[in-house]
């Protein structure tokens, strides 16, 4: 068990610009934290600082309340799962799993028993004597997992552990990881750029962009009350729609705020409805299985709506209206992108807030 605290962590590589610009986080004991963000935003860098693989010179890193900036990796009681697994190619699966125990001088009989136990949990028993080269991607992934689990570390760091797997395996492994977290009770810091993974796994999600922490909160809050336009647009598929207020027909709101709404918040109308609605032309329909995604061209640009199956579908080129329940709209400052807080009760209040935001 361990709690981790990051205080204003900064990092620049020797010959490059600054990569982390003051990241602060409090990670509770046993929490499942997912770090998301676009490629190059510094997720791996942050993880490597936690692991002790790169020196942490600026800011403070506390593990269980003790300063850990200068602690070498082997003294941190942290296990790490690498993006490409980094299995030792010259060792068998069993040796791979037991290696960490061997280095910690666990007696041979004990470490083999322990490694077999772990392999059993991960359904690796038939492959114990194989080298990693003779395993499938999913099996390698489980060996990497087993190597981390064998040592009973209090903290696991995982850098995009599922990114090399095909989709069905990824979904299966996602549940396995979640189960494992429940069984082990360990603290997990998990890096991904897959937002579905982030929302489905995390107790709390940390969204990063360009080395800045954008928001750090539960998936519900991240999804419903994103801190800014970036977080709103990054999480959720299809992505949130943004239009400037003046383009929203039927909504006589003050101008100069940007309004964001999720594709699920739109309802389809074939004629102009009474509530605020956007006039649009269907450009493309896409079937996802349980629903259809409509891609429409509106005065505010390309926009997506999700329509449950069974509703009458417009065909490409049709003129439609997409109605928006004002309580489901979010307002953003068009310049800074910060979300403007608004009590989500009535359209009247929304209008009032919009007025305030514009002022």
């Amino acid at each position, binding site marked *: 068990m361990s709690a981790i605290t990051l205080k204003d962590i900064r990092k620049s590589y020797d010959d490059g610009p600054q990569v982390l610009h003051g990241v602060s986080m409090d990670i509770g004991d046993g929490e499942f934290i997912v770090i998301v963000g676009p490629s190059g935003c510094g997720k791996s860098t942050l993880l490597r600082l936690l*692991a002790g*693989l790169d020196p942490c010179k600026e800011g403070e890193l506390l593990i269980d309340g003790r300063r850990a900036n200068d602690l*070498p*990796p*082997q003294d941190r009681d*942290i*296990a*790490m799962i*690498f993006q*490409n697994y*980094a*299995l*030792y*190619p*010259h060792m068998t699966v069993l040796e791979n799993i037991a*290696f*960490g125990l061997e*280095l*910690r001088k666990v007696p041979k009989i004990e470490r083999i028993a322990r490694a077999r136990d772990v392999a059993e949990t991960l359904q690796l028993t038939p492959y114990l004597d194989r*080298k*990693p*080269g*003779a395993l499938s991607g999913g099996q390698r992934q489980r060996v990497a997992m087993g*190597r981390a689990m064998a*040592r009973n570390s209090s903290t696991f760091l995982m850098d995009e552990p599922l990114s090399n797997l095909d989709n069905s395996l990824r979904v299966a492994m996602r549940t396995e990881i979640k189960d494992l977290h429940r069984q082990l009770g360990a603290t997990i810091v998990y890096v991904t750029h897959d937002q579905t993974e982030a929302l489905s796994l995390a107790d709390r999600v940390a969204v990063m962009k360009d080395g800045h922490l954008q928001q750090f909160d539960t998936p519900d809050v991240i999804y419903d009350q994103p801190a800014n336009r970036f977080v709103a647009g990054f999480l959720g598929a299809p992505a949130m729609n943004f239009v400037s207020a003046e383009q929203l027909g039927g909504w006589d709101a003050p101008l100069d705020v940007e309004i964001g709404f999720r594709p699920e918040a739109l309802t389809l109308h074939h004629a102009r409805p009474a509530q605020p609605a956007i006039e649009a032309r269907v450009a493309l329909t896409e079937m996802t299985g349980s629903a259809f995604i409509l891609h429409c061209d509106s005065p505010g640009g390309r926009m997506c709506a999700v329509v449950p199956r069974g509703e009458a579908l417009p065909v490409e080129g049709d003129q439609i209206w997409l109605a928006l329940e004002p309580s489901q709209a979010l307002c953003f400052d068009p310049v800074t992108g910060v979300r403007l807080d608004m009590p989500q009760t009535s359209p009247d209040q929304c209008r009032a807030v919009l007025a305030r935001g514009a002022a």
Partner: protein
Amino acid sequence: MKPENPLLALLALTAGVLFLSPVLYSIWMSFQTADAYYTGKLDFTLSNYEMAIGQYNFARYLLNSVIVSGLVTIVGLAVATMAAFAFARYRFPGGNLMFGAVVATLMIPSHITLIPNYLTLANAGLLDTYAGLILPAISNGFAAFFLRQYIRGIPRALDEAAYMDGATPLQVLWRVIVPIAKPAILSMGLYIFITEWNNYIWPLVAVGREDLYTLQIGLARLYRIDPGEGVINWPLVMAASTITILPVLLGFIFVERHLVRGIMMGAVK
């Protein structure tokens, strides 16, 4: 394995015969008496070997060569592997300069360092000792350079995984890097061993005592020993040559099997 292309098989066979025939001929010659050889009669005798070992002390030379080449290989590989690991994985002040210096040694012919080395060892009082034969050869710039390139090709994530597993740098080197780089290390070992085994000029300079002669020195001396009628005793020379090449041949056959296995292991990743 069956030959896929008969033409290639024929080519390989021809090359094999071409390479092997002088070796086989000299081995055959080593079993002839001098008389039989010069008169063209056929004969079989072990007397040349008896003479090489009994009269000319070749057993001792063989032992010396094994000791010198063996130690040069083992110590040289250890030094080169550790240097290669440091150059491949660590950044330290002066590191690039040092690596440049190592590479630069590759361009200096050994004849240029011959006299400075001789003077250094003479000052240290190491002429006419095993240490004098071994020490100058254990730092091998080419081996360090070659292994560094190989180690750079091993993903650093493997080192990092081992550090996370609790390894010290030496454990990373010994338990992760060395096993993975085994094919390269073995090839280098073979190269160092053969080079040292065939080394003639340095043992000639560094050693005057007959009981420290290596095979190459002993072999060369046979040319200078007049067998009586002012002709070289070729069957004796061939017997001594056979003693000289046999260990290398056996060693190669042994290591080669490991090499193939190592290369195959490295290919699966």
